[in-house]
């Protein structure tokens, strides 16, 4: 698989939805496969909240790509046929401009001064990326969860620039419960003594404990009850591999491990910024969902998973029903997936077939 990673600079900057201007910014991207001569095989993938530009294959720093089960040679999104692009979202912490990068205007780390970005801003910056790469349109824009919201926003913001949108385990807006969960996570970060109102870089510390707790909570919401039961049950952790003395159960050890791992690699300000962007997104916020989807030209594939209680399948159906009112070619499929909300990340025979057939339809 031909893979290419690069940091692309946008010297003209961007005006954000909030009115804030970034005078310049960078996007870290990864691409797979090759753009064909007619430039008709480009696919943009949008990552979810804690994802990044590294979608497929193994990387010594970033590990296995977040959608490696779906993207690659001969996989559902076949990199032998398609030129697949993904960028680390603006405000993220994996190479693109964000709270943990240097503000070129001040030569200091942005930290808490990095402006709040929105799903709309991400899509706008991805459109700038598309122009930078000389891609006339995307054959498909797809993503799961927060990535699905971006795919939906693409169909609204740039109806002529994509043929298809794959919206998986997503919703037209976050629910009250989603916002509530995110707020608990943010609160645990803010209350970490090392947070310093987001200016922890100035103190040479990171709010690791808060970030860890936030991730542990998040992780519970990504899995289903059944999946947790099957995978961990009420089994006790064996004493040699306990992360700490207080642990009794395997699930505790698992969450401790995942939390630690995440807290070492993710940026706390990015966590707050990304979850806020998720909470603030509402595809129908100005004129209602039906009216907002009116000009969509892309064909939509909306997939939900029975075991997903974070963005349950009915939330995806809201998008399909609103699209149908506008006579938009829109399909809605519910699939079984063992992994709760995270099911969109994993290959199942039916899921991969649906994606594959949608792309070639």
């Amino acid at each position, binding site marked *: 698989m031909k893979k290419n990673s690069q940091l692309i600079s946008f010297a003209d900057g961007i005006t954000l939805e909030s009115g804030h201007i970034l005078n310049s910014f960078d996007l870290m991207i990864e691409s797979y496969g090759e753009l064909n001569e007619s430039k008709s095989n480009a696919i943009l993938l949008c990552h979810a909240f804690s994802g990044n530009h590294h979608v497929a294959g193994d990387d010594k720093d970033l590990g296995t790509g977040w959608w490696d089960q779906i993207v690659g040679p001969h996989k559902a999104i076949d990199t032998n046929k398609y030129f697949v692009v993904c960028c680390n979202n603006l405000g993220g912490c994996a190479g693109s401009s964000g709270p943990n990068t240097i503000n070129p205007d001040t030569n200091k780390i942005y930290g808490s001064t990095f402006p709040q970005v929105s799903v709309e801003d991400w899509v706008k910056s991805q459109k700038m990326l598309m122009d930078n790469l000389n891609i006339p349109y995307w054959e498909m824009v797809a993503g799961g969860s927060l990535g699905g919201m971006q795919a939906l926003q693409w169909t609204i913001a740039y109806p002529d620039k994509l043929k298809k949108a794959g919206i998986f385990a997503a919703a037209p807006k976050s629910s009250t419960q989603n916002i509530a969960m995110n707020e608990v996570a943010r609160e645990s970060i803010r209350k970490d003594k090392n947070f310093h109102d987001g200016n922890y870089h100035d103190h040479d510390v990171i709010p690791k404990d808060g970030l860890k707790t936030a991730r542990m909570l998040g992780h519970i919401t990504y899995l289903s009850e059944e999946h947790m039961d099957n995978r961990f049950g009420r089994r006790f952790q064996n004493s040699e591999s306990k992360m700490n003395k207080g642990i009794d159960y395997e699930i505790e050890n698992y969450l401790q491990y995942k939390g630690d791992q995440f807290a070492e690699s993710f940026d706390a300000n990015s966590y707050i910024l990304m979850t806020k962007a998720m909470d603030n997104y509402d595809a129908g916020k100005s004129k209602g969902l039906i009216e907002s989807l009116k000009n969509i030209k892309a064909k939509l594939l909306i997939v939900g998973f029975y075991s997903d209680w974070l963005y349950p399948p009915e939330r995806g159906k809201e998008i399909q*029903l609103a699209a149908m*009112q506008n*006579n938009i*070619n829109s399909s809605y*499929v519910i699939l079984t997936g063992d992994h709760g909300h995270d099911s969109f990340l994993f290959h199942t025979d039916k899921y991969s077939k649906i994606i594959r*057939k949608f792309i070639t*339809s």
Partner: protein
Amino acid sequence: MAIELSNIIKDWVPNKSKVIDFGCGEGSLLKELMIEKNVFGYGVEINDTKIQECIAKGVAVIKQDIDKGINEFESANFDLSIMARSIQCLKNPNLALNRMLSLSKRCVVTLPNLGYWKCRLNIMNGKMPVTPELPSSWYETENIHLCTIKDFEKLCADEKINIIDKVFLNKNSNRGKFTSIIPNLLAVEGVYLLEK
């Protein structure tokens, strides 16, 4: 779907209308309607393999168990709803019929005729009908609400549903010469265009 049946339905579908096909299978009828009549078509199907085929054809499809409700489609303003060879499988065919007519101006319903002489012969021999058109045994059939042409038309009258047009098909799925003379005895399948 048999050619004659799909031709009959096509004749009843106005150009550029908005159509929903309950139990759309692999989406063949909708695909034809999309190409020949420029319809905005949506299929409703529960079988995953058939759903995949719809998507491969570019036919919009919604995964849903029709028995669990079709109310949610009411806001979408359909011109026509179609239920081909499925109404006898539902728990409440009469409710489904009324709902279809509240979510679309007209609806097309096709159903196997239990009054067909071969079915009657089976029953006269003391057995539940098993015919080429109704091939399953009583214990494994999905057809839990079979009826005759007469029964169906009585239901329409009781529910104040107008039969705009109807066609009767013989065992070869054609409009046989004599089929429409005594449809309740000679028709294998009834095809109805309804309005309320």
